[in-house]
């Protein structure tokens, strides 16, 4: 059965993905900040059929703790079949505009820390010569918009970095997967929902992600319609785009 490392394992999207894998009896190494919530996720996955679950407490913005986490994971697994990076926060754009510190924190949490983790994990996959490194970015990373460009630029960093890794591993069996969910109904987006935004169900999004990761697709839009929507948004010329209130 597949051995799966999940970073940000208490997020709604990674949990929904893990539940789908748990049904198949996969083994998990779960990483998150909050030990109490992590324990709740672990017992849920075990009940749903996971073969084994190991938990590890780590703050993903503390780079110095990454090697220890990876060592522990490899001790449990020997080989990582799938690594899914899914930690993050939804930045408060307006507050970020007034605070360099906050902007930096958001870029750190959603961008730099992800890139740091991928750097380390890529080298492990380079040794393994097999496996799949999947990272959850966002449609927000496809084009900067005034309503969320701090979050978007961090996700954009992850996107370009992933492209680079895909290029680097192109001639190997290692799959690098970039996941771009559209706005999804999770606790993180409850603010968007109360503003009346239509959100995709987390189970639908997870289904698309797990299918894509199992196939090793280079880019997954979830739900799939976002590939089309973002294609249009990317190609809208600036003189029109700048008039849009999005």
């Amino acid at each position, binding site marked *: 059965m597949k051995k799966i490392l999940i970073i940000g394992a208490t997020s*709604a999207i990674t949990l929904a993905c893990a539940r789908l894998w748990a049904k198949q009896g996969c083994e998990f190494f779960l990483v998150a900040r909050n030990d*109490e919530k992590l324990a*709740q996720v672990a*017992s849920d996955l075990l*009940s749903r*059929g996971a073969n084994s679950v190991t938990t590890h407490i780590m703050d993903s913005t503390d780079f110095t703790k990454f090697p220890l986490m990876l060592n522990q994971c490899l001790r449990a697994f020997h080989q990582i079949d799938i690594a899914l990076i899914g930690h993050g926060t939804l930045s408060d754009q307006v507050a970020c505009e007034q605070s360099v510190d906050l902007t930096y924190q958001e870029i750190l949490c959603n961008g730099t820390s992800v890139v740091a983790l991928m750097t380390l994990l890529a080298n492990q996959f380079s040794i393994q010569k097999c496996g799949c490194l999947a990272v959850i970015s966002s449609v927000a990373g496809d084009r900067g918009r005034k309503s969320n460009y701090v979050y978007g630029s961090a996700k954009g960093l992850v996107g370009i970095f992933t492209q680079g890794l895909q290029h680097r591993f192109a001639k190997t069996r290692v799959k690098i997967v970039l996941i771009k969910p559209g706005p999804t109904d999770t606790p993180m987006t*409850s603010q968007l*929902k109360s503003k009346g935004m239509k959100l995709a169900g987390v189970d639908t999004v997870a289904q698309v992600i797990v299918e894509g990761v199992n196939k090793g697709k280079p880019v997954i839009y979830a739900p799939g319609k976002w590939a089309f929507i973002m294609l249009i948004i990317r190609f809208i010329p600036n003189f029109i785009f700048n008039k849009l209130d999005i």
Partner: protein
Amino acid sequence: MSNYLYSWGRYPRRPQTPHLCSWRDELSNQFDRVASISGTTLAYGNGRSYGDSCLALSSQVFHLKALNKFIHVDWQLGIVIAEPGLTLGEILEVSIPRGWFLAVTPGTQFVSLGGAVANDVHGKNHHRRGTFGKHVSRFGLLRHGQDEIVCSASENAELYSATIGGLGLTGIISWVEIKLVPVRTSLIDSTSVRFGNLSEFFQLSDELDSLHEYSVAWIDCLAKSNQLGRGVYFVGNHADYGALDFDIKPKLNVPFIPPISLINNLSLKLFNEAYWRAHSRQKTHSQVGYDPFFYPLDRISNWNRIYGKPGFQQYQCVIPTKSAEIAVRSLLQAIAIAGAGSFLVVLKRCGDIISPGLLSFPIPGISLALDFPQNLKLSELFTKLDAIVSEAGGRLYPAKDAHMSGSDFRKAYPNWETLELLRDPSLMSLFWKRVTS
């Protein structure tokens, strides 16, 4: 698309603002926070209660749908402990491949575990296994400003029986432990037979119920005179041989709310005639998956939308055995004369297994349930039906209700005063306010 929540019948139309909680360790603090901001609140799971029993008086609900994690499972003993937002379908998805099934299941698998306890739901095997609450061994209860209380038949027994069927008013259910039943397959050996009138229903019920785990009848609510109460009887048992497959995905969807109801007298008449004639007078045996047998409507997502913007009400009553035949006949007559009703009309015998719940709905007798598109003429019909039910010593089902009078409720559920004494003062539903004041 808005963020508001409604009840399943979308009537009464009182938009509820959700306050989400998805973690057990945050439940107590968030409950206290929502209760102190809103004055009173009410737990809201998956919104399958039809009327106003799942709507908060303050319109601020404590939304626990995402509190849906398993806590512990024991596949040797068939025990599941889980959070209240987990749906029965999610339990089946995990339990069926391991040879376990819900001891009691209602007609949809989309109800939450907490909702199943709070409404003490029942199913097609009430005559064999009683209500859902009968299979709830323990649960956790959070009351405003207190630590979690563990309730079982032997521990905090008063709160245990008040919470089962207690409409979510005694506290927030934080986890539930249920006992499952072993099955060899996920298939049901089913028998169907059509019957020509109400008397034949009672004959079939006497003949078939004791031989089968599950029994239920569909009724053509428009049939009159000597065909009054004609329908199709369905019984079933878990099959002995076959696969253990979980298989349910909505196959159809009602994507939007039409401005008016798609169910009217003409469409209904055509439906009912065709459906009745599609079944044989002879007993027909077949083997079907558990999902079409228990959850035919779950295949159509958002089926409640077919009643259009005004929504609909379900009328479900239970009539004690001794007065059942006469009263059900009068009810069906009144409905047929009004020419109202819907395709889905369910008649079912409830058994004599006593529920642990203080306000549980079933009593030994016959239960009748049917949907009505919401319109102005409805209250006139309901007044007639209520009089028949009340005179026969029957009662209505709070989980489905949006109209019963306070006096009818208090007469039919004399234990309401005990529940009111045990109610957490920070919890209040529109239903409870309506029937107790």
